[in-house]
């Protein structure tokens, strides 16, 4: 089906030549940044600065500067963490799973999606560190050799699993991304005049020579890494969900969490990729590379994962009711009708209702509409984690300890700061590296193919061209 689709409508529009592709993609890198970029960059940098200052204040003064209390021990911190980890998932899904499934429409978006993954994991990584009461002792969660005798880390703790899952995820994603970049890095090298730029990219491109043998090895490594990264798409968020699922707290203690979290992560990641792509496409004049077809395919994925998430929400209620466990039943009634019901209904509206518009092709083809919907999904998925964490904690077993939660400006500023970090990194990425995988896109241009739908080969998109 996909093959006939490609036959009818090319993935890359505008009848690009191979050279044009290189020129188009590298254009932003090879000229001075425009006013728009500077405005965006300075704005992101200020947000990052705000985040850095508040984190410094919070680390020197204490976690008490957050709105947490004896009953609600996590709120914004872990919400932000899970949110950002979820965002990262789309990148891995697009780069690894879709690669293995030979979904060639991925070539236009995989580079930036992977970059987004890395930056999102960086943003996510901040929170488990700063949420600690003594972050300077944070390295104790790793099983490093030490002189404390039998005192090591606790392998039973899901937080320790988290530390492994996230560091593994980051390392594999970064490697995968870097390997995928090598042919493009060589292209930049070859286009640069002798000087610092050329030296740097020579080193980074690891002596790429575009030979048949190089290409073959590259392809092998890339496929292997894709194979390695694929389980991570499932494992990372599964492990993150265990932070909650292995506990005894009603609303957390749920076996549905791993698939529910993975689906949610892909859902939120796709939404974020779309949000960014719609902006980048416009800002960087990549309309011919990121086409309506890309948007359409991703919207369908969003619709599918939204359905899974909605099913999970429903299943949770059913399980609670069916369990006859009064604590469990109460938690879900409290979620939907208690003092924090507003957050629950924001979640449901954004994650279940808003994506329903994507059933309509007209909506899927209207970029402003898709953009708005993806923003709603981003908000909704943040609230999903907030709802799971806060509404389960604030009213658990003993009514004597029930409490409420509201964030302090410090907490809000850390969330904003994480967005600042994300966008700062992303804007730098747009300036420094090709946002589209040049070599891969050249492979789907169908130059040199008589028959439509024939297999693309990477040899045709040689880096040197």
């Amino acid at each position, binding site marked *: 089906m996909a093959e006939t689709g490609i036959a009818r409508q090319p993935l890359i529009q505008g009848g690009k030549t191979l050279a044009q592709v290189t020129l188009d993609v590298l254009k932003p890198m090879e000229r001075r940044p425009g006013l728009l970029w500077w405005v965006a960059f300075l704005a992101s940098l200020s947000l990052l600065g705000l985040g850095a200052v508040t984190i410094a*204040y919070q680390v020197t*003064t*204490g*976690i*008490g*500067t957050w*709105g*947490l*209390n*004896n*009953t609600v*021990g*996590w709120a914004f911190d872990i919400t932000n963490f899970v949110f950002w980890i979820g965002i990262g998932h789309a990148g891995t899904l697009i780069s690894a799973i879709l690669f293995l499934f030979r979904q060639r429409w991925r070539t236009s978006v995989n580079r930036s999606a992977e970059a987004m993954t890395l930056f999102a994991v960086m943003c996510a990584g901040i929170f*488990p560190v700063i*949420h*600690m*009461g*003594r*972050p300077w*002792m*944070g390295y*104790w*969660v790793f099983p490093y050799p030490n002189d404390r005798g039998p*005192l*090591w*880390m*606790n392998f*039973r*703790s*899901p*937080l*320790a699993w988290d*530390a492994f899952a996230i560091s593994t995820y980051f390392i594999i994603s970064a490697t995968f991304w870097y390997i995928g970049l090598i042919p493009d890095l060589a292209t930049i090298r070859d286009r640069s005049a002798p000087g610092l730029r050329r030296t740097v990219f020579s080193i980074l491109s690891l002596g790429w020579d575009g030979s048949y043998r190089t290409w073959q090895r590259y392809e092998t490594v890339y496929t292997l890494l894709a194979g390695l990264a694929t389980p991570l798409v499932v494992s990372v968020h599964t492990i993150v969900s265990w*932070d909650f699922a*292995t*506990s*005894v*707290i009603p609303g957390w203690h749920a076996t549905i969490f791993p698939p529910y979290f993975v689906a949610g992560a892909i859902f939120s990641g796709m939404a974020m990729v779309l949000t960014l792509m719609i902006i980048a496409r416009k800002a960087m004049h990549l309309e011919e590379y990121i086409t309506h077809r890309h948007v359409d395919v991703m919207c369908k994925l969003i619709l599918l994962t939204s359905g899974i998430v909605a099913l999970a929400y429903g299943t949770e209620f059913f399980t609670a009711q069916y369990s006859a466990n*009064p*604590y469990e*039943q*109460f938690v879900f*009634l*409290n979620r939907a*009708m*208690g003092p924090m019901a507003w957050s629950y209904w924001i979640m449901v509206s954004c994650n279940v209702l808003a994506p329903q518009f994507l059933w309509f092709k007209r909506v899927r083809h209207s970029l402003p509409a898709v953009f708005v919907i993806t923003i709603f999904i981003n908000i909704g998925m943040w609230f999903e984690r907030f709802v799971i964490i806060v509404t389960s*904690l604030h*009213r*658990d*077993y*003993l*009514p*004597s*300890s*029930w*409490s*409420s939660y509201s964030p*302090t*400006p*410090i907490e809000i500023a850390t969330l904003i700061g994480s967005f600042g970090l994300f966008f700062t990194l992303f804007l730098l990425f747009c300036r420094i590296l090709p946002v589209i995988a040049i070599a891969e896109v050249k492979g789907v241009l169908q130059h040199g193919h008589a028959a439509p739908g024939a297999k693309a080969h990477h040899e045709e998109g040689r880096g040197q061209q």
Partner: protein
Amino acid sequence: MNDPHQVHWRSLDEFADPQLAERRGESEFEDTPLRHAEAPGRRDFLRATGFVLAGSAITGCSRAPVRTATPLPTQPEDYWPGRSDQYATICTACSASCGVLAKVRDGRPVKLEGNPDHPLSRGGLCAVGQASILSLYDSHRLGQPHVSGKPSSWEEADRAILTALESIRKQKGAVRILTGTVTSPSLQERIRAFAATFDNARHIVFDPLSSSAILDAHEALFGARVLPRMRFEKAPVVAAFDADFLGTWISPAEFTRGYREARLENGKPSAQAWHTQFESHLSLTGGGAEERVRLAPGQLAHALAALVARLASRAGARSPAVTSPAGALPDKQLDELAARLWNARGRSLVVCGLADVKAQKLCAYANHLLGNYGATLDLERPSLQRQGSDRAMSGLLQEISAGQLGALFVHGLNPAAELPLDKTALEAMCRIPLLVSLSSRTDETAELARFVCPDADPLESWGDAEPVSGTVCIQQPVFRQVGHSRPAMESFAAWSGKPATARDLVRTHWRDSIHPRHGGGLPFEEFWRASLQTGAMEVKPQSRAATALRQEAVEALPAPSAEGMTAVLYAKTGILDGRHAYNPWLQELPDPISKAAWDNYACVSPAKAASLGLADGDLIKITAAGHSIEIPVLIQAGQHDDAVSIALGYGRRESQRFSNPGPKWMYAKPTTGADGLVGVNASCLLRWTPETLAYHRGVQIEKTGRNRELAVTQTHHSLTMPPKLDPGGPPRPIVQETSLVQLSAPAEHKSEAHPELWPRDHQYTGHRWAMAIDLDACSGCSACVVSCQIENNVPVAGRDEVIRNREMHWLRIDRYYSGTPENPRVAHQPMMCQHCEHAPCETVCPVLATVHSSEGLNQQIYNRCVGTRYCANNCPYKVRRFNWFDYPHEDRLVNLVLNPDVTVRSRGVMEKCSFCVQRIQEAKIEAKRLGKPMADGDVAPACQQSCPAQAIVFGDLNDPKSRVSQWAAQARGYRVLEEINVRPSVYYLKVIRRDGEANGGGHHG
């Protein structure tokens, strides 16, 4: 030139007059006193010095007793650094004078514990007593006398006071000594001796929380102004009218212990026990009563009269006329109560806390009809814990306003804050020529006084007490004086012209007056030593002429007047009359009923609040006769619709220091109100009647439209879910109840409810520590909360942090209401770390900072903790406490109270109840040293040690004979949240409902 007699001359003058040198030699040392003929010469001096030296060397050979506390540069025998010693002394935090053991570690007292050998408190010590140790280390305590607000010396102050007294003596001016109840016989003797040096001197005794009406009633009925000692331990049936005897009334620790004992028969719940409480404000005592009758403040005395009428008709005795309309009173409940009381004649008590002499006469008459005098009310050995006279106080105020006083000495009282004094009265007080305050802190009265002669702290000075006639106790110093305060006793001795040390004064008084009353034939020294060691001795009571009751003195009550809204001024647990307003532990202690800390508030019933449109925290203006206060509202279940109750003891000058006792950060809000004080002083609403100072008064209430958030530690009050969110089914089985019927049913074999699929994680081959708490015994008095806080160096977080739900108490008392909001039942549940066998906190900590010990303790390792708070989230009991900030520890004097056995936690780490592991270790080491196995009861955690109700036991669950094993195996034993299989080590014993409405599962909704 060889003439041997040749005269050598040194000057021409000398040559001219050869005698000159000789004459000059004679006058050479003319200036020295040794030259004076009448003064002793050099030889005399040497002779005298030699004699003194030899004499002092000889007398120095015998060892003089150590009279002052000294530092320990040389280690005395039987003293090891790091080991604590306990000294028996008395608690002076209120006039109940309970016995305490001061735990002294490395020369400094770190904890006050109840003295089990004390005949009144018997090991109990209330929250206020526990917290009073902080007074010793209070850096705001005055360390020297002040004259006109400036620091001075004792010599200077005494000289000025003595000069002033001399002129008053000459002018025959009036001297008044105003004190609170003085239970110390030695101090009383000193005051008497001081007063005797004047022609017109009197000792006025006044209690801010007065029982004057009881004393006056007994004076009228029995001819002796006495407060009978109430023997709650002999009275299973109790009827109380507005008397919070388990919480704040007269001697709560003693009464709680007695009350608990009377409710047991041979260790089993007594079937006869019954308690009915009549009150308009939900008190600690009323909340736990079998039956609580909610009445308007004006109806209480009439209900008492109606009860007396019923008792009189049963006894066939004269009955005073009942004046209240019959319909207004709960006739059915009164009938039943009269029957219960009548069946328990001589084993019952009717107590009344109303400041109304007529009502107190009725109460006494009721007890007389029931034959309680001589059985449960002791007139032979009456209580001396309340001696104040409201009439004497009112007379004194008239004298002050009339400007008739020459001198006023104020000790142990703060009339400027405790009495409804207006500006003119305060000005009149300032005009007293000699106003001396003996307050240890600059309180409102000390601010007015020209002389402030600070009394020493009881832990640093000698003293004594006779709380009940015939029970005498010594107060011994356990710490060297901080600063240069002076015991009041010494001050009065100095002003009488006979200065002496407090120790000598106490010893002399004991030798001359107390020892002769001891019939045992013990020599004085042994008697003295025995008193010091045990903390209390029984001697013959002071003889009082208690005659038979004069029935004709019992009067009928005046007809009730429609009063509308009535203010009820009450004493709040922990704060009492406000004398401990400086104490942050007590300020942060949540009220056992309202769970509010740090402020006082106006309790309004839910119905009244709805009709006035009031919500929690709304500021209202309460006005009475021109006086008004603005105070936030707290909607209190159980409150009578026509009563608004306000705690006394707030808005004190000493609370100025609490502008921000907690962490300092960007959004920290102050603890004090706009006036810089904690709470509002409501004493302006007190009202003088001809006989007493009344705590009830008709008032008007207005909304102000502003509000002040209250620091409440518990926001949901019931085990039933909010109506909209209730999934149905019974209330949560967290506090469980049982009835006498269920208990007397043949005990079903308690089987292991949850079979285990896996082998046990922990074998517990040695000890297995566990705790059991009797919820039926627990009154909620909160002594354990403060005791735990002191023992474990738990920081004070401040009002803002409490509002943010970050109070640090390791042990909290959960309070659940059941029944109707109009008249709920109250259950208290002490909740601390449950030391689960399958602890959810242990598995989730990524760094192994919380681990299980081989003896069943869940241990928190502070220096390993990185502060992920996952453990707290995963704790089903929510007992873990996080150090959100570095809590202030800048005050180096206050830091001396820290327990050296317990780490002071830094920011960013989790903490929680450790079952007082330091005490377990201490007991284990001691057992090892003595080479014998540990016995049950060797370890008493801080909460258990001082529990006045003895509701907590701790011990080894592996020892089937230990009390904790036996309690756990009882039919009443259960564990909270047993169904989630975390297997806690804390067992609770179900509440017993004697009114037949018990619910086996949950607490009734």
